């Protein structure tokens, strides 16, 4: 996993509730091996019309937000299917963080395991960020994982929560499997107790 300490840049405002993982990454790409650039399939059917042409009204196609590494979304982002490919698509699309008032539970966990930082903020804070990003697409947002803050203007500095373990994984660029494997004695002890 890639290290993550701070991130600064413009945000892509996706102001729609309940964006499901079928929208983020359509099922017909699920059989593709991870070596593919899933960014090519990110929001494939939302980005394109029936003739395969880019829809100019979709924010991901707008020049102002090219290069955004922070995705700003609304309630229940990433609901639906458990497909981790949805996270891969966002990550491969260049994003390193998603800010929303709430996430689909499985998506949230998948993001944590792939170096895509999911940040839950209060609805009012997210709505303020939407206005900033929509009024001025050049608005610079700074995510500081060490301090657990999101800063977007002199008036907008908010704190977010993340569990200590995930925070460490992001800061050090490690994944949890190595750590869990070091706990095998505890797992074996549990199994013996379960059998007894």
């Amino acid at each position, binding site marked *: 996993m890639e290290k993550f300490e701070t991130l600064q840049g413009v945000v892509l405002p996706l102001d729609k509730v*309940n964006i*499901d993982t*079928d929208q983020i990454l359509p099922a017909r790409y699920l059989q593709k091996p*991870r070596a593919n650039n899933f960014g090519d399939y990110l929001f494939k059917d939302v980005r394109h019309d029936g003739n395969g042409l880019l829809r100019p009204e979709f924010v991901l196609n707008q020049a102002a937000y090219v290069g955004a590494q922070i995705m700003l979304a609304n309630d229940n982002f990433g609901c639906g299917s458990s497909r981790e490919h949805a996270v891969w698509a966002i990550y491969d699309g260049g994003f390193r963080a998603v800010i929303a008032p709430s996430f689909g539970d499985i998506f949230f966990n*998948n993001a944590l395991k792939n170096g895509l930082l999911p940040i839950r903020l209060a609805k009012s804070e997210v709505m303020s960020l939407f206005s900033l990003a929509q009024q001025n697409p050049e608005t610079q947002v700074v995510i500081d994982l060490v301090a657990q803050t999101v800063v977007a203007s002199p008036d907008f500095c908010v704190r977010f929560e993340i569990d200590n373990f995930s925070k460490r994984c992001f800061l050090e660029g490690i994944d949890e499997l190595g750590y869990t494997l070091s706990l095998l004695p505890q797992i074996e002890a549990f199994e013996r107790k379960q059998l007894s």
Partner: protein
Amino acid sequence: MQKTQPMGQVLTLFEKIWRSHVVMERDDGVSLLYVDLHLVQDGSAPAFEMLHQRQIKVRVPSKTFGTPDHYIPTLGRNLSTIRDPEKRAMAKALEDDCDKHHIPFFGLQDSRQGIIHVIAPEQGLSQPGQLIVCGDSHTGTHGAFGALAFGIGASEVAHVLATQVVWQQKPLTMRINIEGTLGKGVTAKDIILAIIGKIGVAGAVGHAIEYTGQTIRDLSIQERMTVCNMSIEAGGRTGMIAPDEKAFEWLKDKPFSPKGSDWEVALKGWRNLFSDSAAVFNQVVQMRGEEISPMVTWGNSPEDVLPIDGIVPFPADAPNSVKRQSIENAEAYMGLIPGQKLTEIKIDHVFIGSCTNGRIEDLRSAAAVVKDRHVAQGVQAWVVPGSGLVKRQAEQEGLDQIFMSAGFQWREPGCSMCLGTNGDQVPAGQRCASTSNRNFVGRQGPGSRTHLMSPAMAAAAAVTGRLTDVRNLI
């Protein structure tokens, strides 16, 4: 395995199962949970690939079970008929990975193969009090037996394969209590659709749901599976129902159920699996069975659902601008006119199947409507049984003949048109009455239009060619 709780502890069913599976807790409150049953399907190739990259073996193959369902053909049983090499590779990879790691596996040629959430209960693999995971969001299905069952992503699948444990933040709890009796033509599918309509698709985010009340207790085990299956569509981490005599009866003598004295010991533990009467839930939702009608979805979210006698909503009636926009978008995509009666909506396809509604009772309920009728002209109607055993049972009862003589296609088991990963898709712009679980944009194929409903309602739509109130046909 189910430890008796210390005296004076008042616990929910969820809490009892959670506690009995905690291997350790991190100082940030995240718990390491032991997995009793890990179900894998042909979407699991990326997870096995993660293991292979690290040269790690599957730690407990005997607590893992695999069958292909997502990528397999429903017109035959031969992998070589899958034309897309990448899709064929997915189905083949599961076979090879299970073989390599000595994981119990029902292949495509095995008459017991089927959708993983149909066959695990069918085989007695899913048992009360277990912690069950699968790389599929509809894993909550197994909660119908009083198991704690939830979907996980590919990295977590790899983690469970390697360690037999999974890290989880403890969810909050929600009780959905339904009292009263269901009306004629109202099924378990209508119950869960009505719940989602009431609390919304984000209503249970971060929560484990327990379904309680007389209406739930009156449901058969198969009906309970339908309800628990779609907990994820309400945002729930999982859904569960306290096991009772119906659950124990189901499990008795199933191939993987405990036998002899082990059965007696297991049964004793299972009888402790209920929420104590004074147990407190973070949220409680109350509903009445009599108030639930046959339901259909009209939009692109499972919460876009209405009783069949309703009309397509007017965007102007939406409570806020975000909702208004989402109604407008959905109606444009679905090709619907505000104010139109739902029963005037014509359909092109019917899909009866999926992990939500591919069980024998579902097929019986659809066949009862189809009997002595014929699929409407221009409608393509399919039945895809949930498993080989469901298919065989249906054939023994003559249901296949009822469907085929009415003009339905009678197919081989798999996930099929629920999400179309195997190529069974609804063409762009066409409309499908479907017993599956999601009506998202493009879910059944790019441009496809899905209306979710019960098997009886889908059967009614098949024979009339439009969304139909099944109560008028039974």
